[in-house]
């Protein structure tokens, strides 16, 4: 007789709640240990949840679409004869409360900012609503739920998750919006009950034209219309970022060290490597990853984190590579970069980024980084500084490679330059340490053949 409590697992470092995307097993199914029970959306990714016991899935306590805090009882695996009534009864209704298995995974002491189950399910409902009747592919993309409000409207529904889910709009308004690229979430409807109807979309579409006309030297006052503000509920990812960043920038005293890197040779080498037949495509960011990994090995003080009254020095370079998503960013971890050749880094980094965008990362790919790299080069960013992702001790911010005038021994020429800025935790390291690390990264990139050996 073995009754196994199925609890919301902690699938990533930052995870506080998880939402059941779908149950892959249904009540009554026989379960073997290791079977995939369900898909869970965490703050970072969609991950599969394994069964830790065998038996029959007797009860599902948290249905698909609802969220539960980690540790909460979400299901029961037992043999058909086992009495699970007391266990089931002990679970809070809807499974949203802390489960009886709290002792297994200690819940954090601070008040959990877990959204009520209703908010999650409302957000879930928003998706079918936008694609239910419209075959227009553009409008079928899942969107975060939104509340639109204008000053004229009583803000009764603001902030209430259950009202956040749907954009009320006529079918015609939806189609015209999809075809003209008007965002329905930004429009105040004038139809019954605030329903967005055709003229609202057309007015919004002509808003741009009104704005353009206003730019001309006319005396007439500009008609300002449209919504005053909108409340977009935090996605899981955004909520995690919002929660965690103050834990970084607030308590962690950042300092920044910047350096300009001559990328001419790396550029040339990259082109040469990519011209080789049958080789994986390599990006300059792969060079940066490899260079950072090698520099981290040489400067373990940067590959470090504060652990209470100790500093943990890492001897392996697990590098988190920030990937921009539509609704936030995610930092999958490329393990043991110091030990991987450039080609392998290139292949793995591309695979991680690809799967990150499709939310197909495994839980272990989301934790354990010792250092991170954030590259905004593709946005033509000259330079920027990043916020450290605790418990890591440093993060490297990479700008774009720009052609610019440079002076060398022969005079004025054109060179490719890139700005690197490393943000360091001053509690763990000092300026000189960060500078030496950066100097090495710079040297490796400027003499990129070193990256190949």
């Amino acid at each position: 007789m073995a009754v196994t409590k199925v609890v919301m697992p902690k699938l990533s470092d930052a995870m506080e709640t998880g939402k059941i995307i779908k149950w892959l097993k249904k009540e009554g199914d026989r379960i073997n240990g290791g079977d995939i029970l369900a898909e869970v959306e965490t703050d970072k990714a969609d991950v599969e949840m394994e069964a830790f016991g065998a038996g029959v899935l007797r009860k599902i306590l948290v249905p698909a679409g609802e969220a539960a805090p980690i540790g909460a009882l979400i299901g029961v695996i037992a043999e058909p004869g086992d009495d699970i009534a007391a266990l089931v009864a002990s679970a809070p209704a809807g499974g949203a409360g802390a489960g009886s298995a709290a002792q297994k995974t200690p819940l954090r002491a601070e008040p959990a900012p877990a959204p009520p189950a209703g908010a999650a399910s409302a957000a879930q409902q928003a998706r079918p609503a936008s694609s239910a009747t419209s075959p227009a592919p553009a409008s079928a993309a899942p969107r975060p739920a939104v509340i639109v409000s204008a000053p004229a409207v009583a803000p009764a529904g603001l902030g209430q998750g259950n009202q956040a889910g749907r954009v009320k709009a006529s079918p015609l308004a939806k189609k015209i919006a999809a075809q003209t690229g008007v965002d329905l979430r930004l429009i105040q409807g004038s139809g019954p009950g605030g329903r967005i109807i055709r003229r609202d979309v057309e007015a919004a579409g002509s808003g741009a034209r009104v704005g353009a006309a206003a730019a001309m030297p006319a005396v007439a006052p500009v008609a300002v219309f449209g919504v005053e503000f909108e409340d977009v509920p935090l996605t899981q990812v955004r909520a995690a970022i919002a929660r965690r960043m103050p834990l970084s920038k607030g308590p962690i005293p950042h300092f920044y060290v910047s350096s300009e890197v001559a990328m001419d040779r790396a550029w040339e080498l990259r082109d040469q490597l990519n011209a080789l037949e049958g080789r994986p495509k390599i990006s300059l960011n792969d060079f940066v990853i490899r260079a950072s990994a090698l520099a981290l090995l040489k400067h373990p003080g940067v590959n470090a984190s504060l652990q209470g009254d100790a500093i943990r020095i890492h001897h392996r370079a697990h590098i988190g590579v920030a990937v921009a998503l539509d609704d936030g960013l995610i930092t999958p971890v490329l393990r043991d970069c110091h030990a991987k050749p450039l080609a392998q880094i290139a292949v793995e980094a591309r695979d991680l980024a690809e799967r990150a965008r499709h939310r197909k990362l495994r839980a272990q790919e989301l934790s354990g980084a010792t250092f991170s790299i954030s590259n905004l080069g593709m946005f033509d960013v000259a330079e920027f500084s990043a916020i450290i992702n605790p418990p890591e001790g440093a993060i490297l911010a990479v700008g774009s490679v720009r052609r610019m005038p440079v002076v060398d021994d022969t005079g004025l020429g054109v060179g490719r330059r890139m700005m690197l800025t490393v943000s360091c935790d001053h509690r763990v390291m000092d300026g000189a340490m960060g500078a030496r690390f950066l100097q090495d990264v710079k040297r490796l990139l400027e003499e990129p053949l070193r990256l190949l050996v």
Partner: protein
Amino acid sequence: MATHTFDVVVIGTGPGGYVSAIRCAQLGLKVATVEDDRPGGVCLNWGCIPTKALLRNAEVVNLLGHAADFGIKLGGFEVSYPEAVQRSRRVADRMAKGVEFLFRKNKITLFPGRGTLKARNVVEVTGAGGTESLEARAVILGTGSEPKSLPGVTIDEKVVISSNGAVRNERHPESIAVIGAGAVGVEFADVFASYGAQVTILEALPRVVPVEDEEISKELARTFTRRGITIKTGVKVVSVKPGGAGVVVDLGGEKLEVERVLMAVGRGAKVAGVGLEAQGVQIERGFVKVSPTMETSVKGIYAIGDMAGPPLLAHKAMAEGVVAAEAIAGKSPRPVDYGNVPSCTYCRPQIASIGLTEARAREGGRDVAVGRFPFTASGKAVALGETEGFVKVVADKPTGEILGVHIIGPEATEMIHEFAVGRTLEATLEEIIHTIHAHPTLSEAALEATLAALGQAIHI
């Protein structure tokens, strides 16, 4: 002269006026109505309702004429036109009494007599019992319209009749020329022809029911011609003079000798004799100029219905009456959507339409999709033995917006509302096709025509 005080005085109790009065009363206003005929106006007494009774008679006569098609042998049958007219009078009386009942129920005071504006907020009623003065916060005018004639032609309601005479006159003509092939013209042409008259329709424009979609006109002309009705379009009536069997209609070259002439060239707003000029109420092209809440150029004076402009339709008047009432009661009513007023003609086959004709939809180079479905392919229509006509859907191709719908055929006037609701909700073709239509119904033709506009019709 007694003076009474009300919140609202409504002059005219046609469909606009009585609906407006009732809505005012519902909203807690104290309402008086003024009527110099019977409550219900032209619509209930001399227009919509009695003509529908006559058309029903025409339909029954036609059906009996086709009894053999259903395997029913009648040893001949007799029809009595006077009794048809009497029946239509009874129907009208009953409906008019209904309005009186509704007034009592809603505690609306009816002042029989002629109402004239004496001041912005004062209406003088001159009736059989003398003169009374009504004071009100707001006045709603709904005096309606009357038949127009051609220049130089006097309507005597004996040989040259209007719709007013046509619904009253119990003598059925042997031959009649109907001048004007709009809704009134073709409806009476149907009635007279069904009772055996030689009917000639004369229309100045190139086609019958000229405001409808061209294909509708073609279909109606085809079925009317088959039923023995003569149609002359693009003709100009030069004169209408007594002579011959009754009247001689000169078409400039051709002369038409008929027993009677029905003048159905349109209706004009009744804006004279109400005191509008004295109050400074602005008139534009023969109609009272109104705001979206039906207020005239003079604050506190509202105008609704036929006098407030086209389309001259009872249901449009009712909608305007509600808007005026709600505006007066301090609500902010949704203005009437004049682009979404269904238009119905009750001849056989019936015609109903809403929105733009195909030609209008194509003006300006819009990418238009058209779907048609004939009733010959509708199981229900075939079972009924009513297979004339079709449903035509005109849509905007990129968005599927339903631009216009044109139906000719059995119960067309009942079927149009699916599209009226759809258009109000801004449904597109897809919402219609995803709406399951019961089988077998005539409304399936609406579904199929919609499918056809998307190139997906199943049953054709």
